[in-house]
């Protein structure tokens, strides 16, 4: 199955790297959309069919935690699989994001196989 993916990160370079690593990990994507912060992500989600969201946490305008809160209370978004990709590797933040409904958490820096493994685990668990 090929997935529609939304990558949310304020760094265009990091969005590009995640996209590239997705390809290298062998994960099949039908469409790869991008957003620079949580607000932009909500705009994309309102218009496009998305299966998986990769989100950073520290972003301007609306951070990843606020985005996760919005996703968690929106009935139309309950099918979304959210994978957090962040420099923040604290237990406190991970627990908070998972409690809000994130299905996986990858810390930066990472290598392609880490991302691929987290994705495979997340999609298998939620299938």
């Amino acid at each position, binding site marked *: 199955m090929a997935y529609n993916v939304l990558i949310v990160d*304020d*760094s*265009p*370079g*990091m969005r*590009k*790297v995640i996209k*590239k690593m997705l390809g290298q990990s062998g994960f099949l994507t039908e469409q790869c959309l991008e957003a620079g912060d949580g607000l932009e992500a909500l705009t994309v989600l309102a218009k496009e069919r998305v299966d998986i969201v990769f989100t950073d946490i*520290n*972003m*301007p305008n609306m951070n990843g935690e606020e985005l996760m809160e919005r996703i968690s209370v929106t009935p139309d978004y309950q099918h979304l699989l959210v994978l957090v990709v*962040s*420099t*923040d*590797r*604290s*237990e*406190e*933040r991970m627990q*908070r994001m998972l409690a809000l409904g994130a299905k996986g958490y990858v*810390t*930066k*820096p*990472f*290598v392609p196989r880490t991302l691929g493994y987290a994705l495979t685990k997340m999609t298998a668990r939620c299938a």
Partner: protein
Amino acid sequence: MQAIDLKPLMESAVAEVLESMYFISSEGEVQDEEDSVRPDWIRGELEFAGTPGGTFGIAVPPSTAALMAANFLGEDEIDPTDKQTVEVVCELTNMVCGTLLAQIDSKQAFTLSTPRHVLPGTESPMKSGRIEGTYATDEGLVYTWLELQATA
């Protein structure tokens, strides 16, 4: 928080990020005067809130920054633009700081500001107690520094 020797943590955070995301090997700290930061180096800086809060920054020579950007962005970016190069240095600042803070306190969620590009001549004055290091890599030098806020 217990007193921690931050210098080795900073060195290992730099090495971890450079190796995994930029494919660059760190060869340890250098201390020669000629290796000190120059005005044309590209600088990224951010603030972090937590216990303790503080400021973290990185500076790299333009040639090193361009190579880092090319490595980070991939084979189709052999000649990255100045904008891409600055963004990559800012992302490096973000990742090294996050890695370092996790080593200082793995339980606490620090809040990091968006990294900003510091233009030459607009650097904040150096505060006392700055922890700093210049590291040799196979692509050039990397300077990092950390200033912690005094805690009550």
